[in-house]
């Protein structure tokens, strides 16, 4: 009954209908690893911005000051990329659950991937090129 956790990619099933798709294994693993990192990093981000600083205290100057340090730029870039890939993967699973028509699935997923790409590019652009 007790299943053992195995992170080794499975060889192609002998009776299967196609090659084993290890992408799902890596997506599953990525979601868990990024979950732990986001728990710590997004947790700190939220506690700092909302409890210690408070939404009212946030303005252009505060963020410009924070981005003077390369550490916080990297921190925000990391949050952006890991957060959005984690979210994109979750939405991909949800689309698979509710959109069954093959054509619609391709369309909805394409919209999702395009949105995620645009968002990551916008966020990375401002984090990396911002000059006060």
């Amino acid at each position, binding site marked *: 009954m007790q299943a053992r956790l195995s992170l080794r990619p499975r060889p192609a099933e002998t009776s299967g209908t196609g090659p084993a798709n290890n992408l799902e294994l890596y997506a599953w693993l990525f979601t868990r690893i990024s979950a732990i990192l986001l728990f710590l990093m997004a947790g700190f981000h939220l506690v700092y911005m909302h409890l210690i600083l408070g939404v*009212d205290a946030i303005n252009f100057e505060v963020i410009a000051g924070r981005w003077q340090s390369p550490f916080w730029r990297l921190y925000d870039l990391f949050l952006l990329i890991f957060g959005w890939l984690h979210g994109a993967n979750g939405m991909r699973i949800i689309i698979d659950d509710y959109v069954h028509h093959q054509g619609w699935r391709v369309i909805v997923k394409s919209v999702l991937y395009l949105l995620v790409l645009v968002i990551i590019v916008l966020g990375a652009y401002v984090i990396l090129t*911002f000059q006060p």
Partner: protein
Amino acid sequence: MTAISHLYRAVTYRGREGHIAWLLHRITGIGVFLFLVLHIVDIFLMSFGPDVFDTLLFIYHRFLFKLLIVFGLYLGVLYHALNGIRVVLIDFFPPLAGYQARLWRVQLVIFALAYIPSAILMLSAMFDGQ
């Protein structure tokens, strides 16, 4: 149409703790995703200087939006984070699966202990600023 019937079945299926935990995880996940679209768009406005950024930041300083943060975003992120940790624990230590319902109850206690004081803190800061 199938999407609606699937959604209906997801809500009405009686799977007790595990089912409720999963459903809330999904709903809060979608909610946080949607908020983050707005969040990246607003931070992108930093490129246009203080005038543009600070004038559009007024949305975040609105009373109603702050209420939404406390009772929507913060609540959703906290649930998703704690439930996610429970899922990771069960996935990496499969024998824990037998205790998933009990773990979820423990998780709800941790949720209340973390959420209630911080929500009070945020709400009192809101009223101080009025």
